[in-house]
């Protein structure tokens, strides 16, 4: 295995290439343009296709077409581009196209800012495009996980014939860390489900968003069954010191790195803080919350946004058993001291549970 220091975005791109990605389309947007830049020369090296689309809308639909023809296809973007992707992604879902999208989150509404953020959570896990669906959503919190998740995303997407989203963020994308690069996967794009031209006597294939060729009730039942299976079997998470925790933090991506430091610092001070770090955001790792002791005084999400988007899922998961809070730090990444202090304030009953954060 090859080890080297890489920037998170480049690691994500290289992980995808090694995972068999042979098509990339995208449009430049900070803080993820390094993915596009890496692909612009790397796809040539490996005999794949790179297209700088004329827009995000073009890029997401190029990815649809490439994947429909069998190539393992990736596109990547950040907040404002991710919004433009939503229609296209919904088409991937309804057509059962196992393409992969990476969103390197930044902060803000509309155009927003280029600094790291966690503003696309709702959009990522609650649908986002037309219709009711969920994306299988992976949340890396290190350069290594950018490699690993991009690497395995195609196999995961194909396992369920469903799109996969890698929800990273500006810090994980821009930071550098050592990482191990896995070997190159050989992938045959000549898949039985892919369109490649209909030979005489064969039945033709139409990869489409509309269930014209299948009974709609049957299709719906099949999709629902698949969603339930994914929800049950694909939950992933990491827990730190949860079993005896008086307060439990819940954080993903860059916030989970800060929260982990907060747990260490609090424990050194004798304060029993724990952390659940969702690795899949959908399916949400509900099973992780069973470990929280009854004596816990509160569950706090730590998020780089205004409204504590992930807290919704914590509320759904704990079903009123614990009060829930959100330490939202807007466009700034939380400080370790700030997380510890907030947790202590919750423990001491100094913080009111808000309806809206």
């Amino acid at each position, binding site marked *: 295995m090859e080890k080297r220091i890489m920037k998170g975005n480049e690691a994500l791109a290289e992980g995808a290439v090694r995972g068999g990605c042979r098509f990339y389309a995208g449009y430049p947007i900070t803080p993820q343009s390094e993915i596009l830049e890496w692909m612009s020369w790397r796809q040539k090296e490996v005999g794949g296709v790179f297209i700088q*689309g*004329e827009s995000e*809308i*073009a890029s997401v639909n190029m990815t649809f*077409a490439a994947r429909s*023809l069998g190539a393992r296809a990736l596109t990547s973007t950040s907040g404002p581009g991710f919004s433009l992707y939503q229609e296209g992604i919904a088409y991937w879902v309804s057509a059962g196209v196992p393409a992969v999208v990476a969103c390197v989150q930044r902060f803000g509404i509309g155009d927003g800012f280029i600094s790291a953020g966690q503003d696309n959570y709702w959009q990522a896990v609650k649908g986002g495009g037309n219709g009711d669906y969920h994306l299988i959503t992976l949340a890396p919190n290190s350069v290594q996980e950018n490699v690993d998740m991009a690497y395995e995303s195609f196999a995961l997407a194909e396992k369920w014939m469903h799109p996969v989203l890698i929800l990273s963020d500006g810090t994980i994308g821009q930071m550098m860390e050592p990482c191990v690069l896995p070997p190159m996967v050989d992938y045959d794009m000549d898949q039985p489900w892919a369109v490649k031209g209909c030979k005489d006597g064969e039945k033709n294939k139409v*990869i489409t968003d509309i269930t014209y060729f299948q009974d709609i009730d049957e299709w719906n039942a099949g999709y629902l069954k698949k969603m339930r299976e994914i929800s049950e079997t694909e939950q992933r998470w990491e827990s730190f010191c949860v079993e005896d925790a008086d307060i439990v933090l819940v954080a993903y991506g860059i916030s989970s790195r800060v929260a982990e430091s907060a747990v260490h610092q609090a424990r050194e001070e004798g304060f029993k803080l724990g952390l659940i770090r969702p690795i899949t955001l959908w399916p949400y790792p509900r099973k992780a919350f069973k470990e929280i002791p009854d004596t816990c005084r509160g569950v706090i999400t730590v998020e780089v946004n205004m409204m504590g988007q992930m807290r919704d899922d914590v509320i759904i998961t704990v079903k009123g058993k614990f009060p829930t809070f959100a330490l939202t730090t807007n466009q700034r990444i939380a400080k370790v001291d700030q997380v510890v202090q907030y947790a202590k304030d919750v423990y001491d009953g100094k913080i009111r549970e808000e309806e809206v954060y």
Partner: protein
Amino acid sequence: MPARKAPDLMYAENRFCAGCGHGIFDRILGEVLTEMGIVQDTIICSDIGCNHQFQFCMRVDAIVPPHGKMGAALTAQKHVRPDKYALTICGDGGAYAIGLGETMAAATRNENVTFFVMNNTVYGMTGGQLAPTTMMGQKTASSKAGRTYEEYGENFDVFKVMQGLDIAYLARTSVTNPGNIAKTKKFVRKALEKQRDGKGFSLVEVLVPCPTNWGMTPVKSMEYIDQVVSTQYQLGELIDK
């Protein structure tokens, strides 16, 4: 005279309205693909609109991206499988309104792909609303008093818009009589030959009738194209490289 036998890939009756031009075009395309022996090498990118009904009568592989995004999807198709023909059957709303950006971007890159645009001057599937190609004074479901320059500017003419581009083939035809149908077939074949030879972007616009939304009989619709629509939209080959 017995009817000409439909090519094998036309496996069912089409579902278009009586007198619609789309069905005529699909048959023409089916014949050309068969005659060129490229059915198994063709992947059609469907638009969303009346045109997509080819899926229910033609045995050919296809993909259906969101409405209008054929320029982007065809680009990816051709890059991923250069050995396959990448073509779309689409409408004037898809190619020139919601998808104008993608259509023009594919043309400005001179992508080696082919557009067959059915121009019936209205949005057919949604009930005959104004399209970029709706002619001056033409009454539609969303321009009841007729299109005016003040409201929508000049009607869209792909010849004017694409004439300066570095593309391989640009032509316009109609399907109003056997002569025009034969000419359409020739243009369709020529466009696909450009793609076969790697010449670049080709677009054939076909003036087709929409009796349902025009409120005319099929026969009257054909006369209307010959007498009115074709006088506004020049027929023939504008670019042939």
